[in-house]
């Protein structure tokens, strides 16, 4: 047994241990696209809140008009669905390129750990909307999304943890400044995704 062989063996061990645990098929490009969708969504939402009601005081616009609320929810859901779909398609492609199956143990684990905080947060937000605490929606979405990412970071690219931590901080900040929900959404879901996606693309995929 030579030094080189020993080193190679250790490399194999490391690789296998990493590979069995980590879901590595997340593409940076889908992060960038999700960020762009979020920015478009924020822009549309901004226009609805500020222009449809022609009220410059942002807060009333949110709360009073039922129609406004429904429009905003539709935009948010459209952004969510488009992002998830994009993430899925790019991950499938990347998994193929890596010669791995997309639906394996590591994928299941990352999804379970990500989904739990997301579902709990989603239910809490629905409760808050039904009780007309609209101001809590922006901070809660960002905070729960951040917590979900932070937890999922144990089972996929480590950098996701950073993205998660930043999202929770943006969420907390948005709780301090009520009324600027859309701005913080654009920052968290838009700008941060684009920065993160671009960084991951440059680091792992180019």
């Amino acid at each position, binding site marked *: 047994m030579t*030094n080189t062989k020993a080193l190679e*063996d250790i490399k194999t*061990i490391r690789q*296998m241990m990493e590979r069995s645990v980590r879901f590595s098929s997340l593409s940076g490009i889908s992060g960038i696209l999700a960020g762009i969708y979020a920015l478009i969504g924020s822009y549309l939402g901004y226009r609805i809140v500020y222009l449809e009601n022609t009220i410059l005081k942002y807060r009333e616009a949110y709360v009073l008009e039922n129609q406004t609320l429904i429009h905003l929810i539709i935009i948010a859901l459209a952004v969510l669905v488009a992002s998830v779909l994009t993430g899925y398609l790019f991950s499938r492609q990347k998994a193929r390129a890596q010669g791995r199956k997309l639906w394996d143990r590591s994928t299941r684990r990352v999804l379970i750990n990500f989904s739990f905080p997301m579902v709990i947060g989603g239910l809490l937000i629905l409760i808050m909307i039904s009780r007309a605490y609209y101001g809590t929606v922006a901070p809660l979405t960002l905070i729960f999304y951040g917590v979900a990412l932070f937890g999922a970071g144990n089972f996929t690219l480590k950098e996701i943890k950073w993205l998660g931590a930043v999202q929770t901080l943006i969420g907390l900040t948005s709780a301090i400044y009520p009324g600027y929900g859309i701005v913080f959404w654009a920052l968290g879901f838009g700008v941060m995704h684009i920065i993160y996606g671009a960084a991951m693309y440059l680091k792992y995929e180019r």
Partner: protein
Amino acid sequence: MKEVIKQLDKAFENRIRLGIMSVLMTEESITFNDLKSALELTDGNLASHLKALEKKQYVEVEKKFVGRKPNTTYRATKMGKKAFRNHLEALEKLIAGNH
């Protein structure tokens, strides 16, 4: 140096067996198919190496039925985990010694 080489486990000389044990160190238990996809192996290849590890009692098999489908899972035994740690230690010593 001779001592260290003696400490290396013959069962892990093969890269595939080394890979199987590495996965089983991080996973509590894993199905045949998940192991196959993690290691990128064919059925026959994986099965024969698993058999060898089973024989050494480093790996144990659990056969269950999920509904009607047979579900075979593998896990590392205590003995297997210990042997793997020893082997890893020997590899490290070997590298340190050769410097």
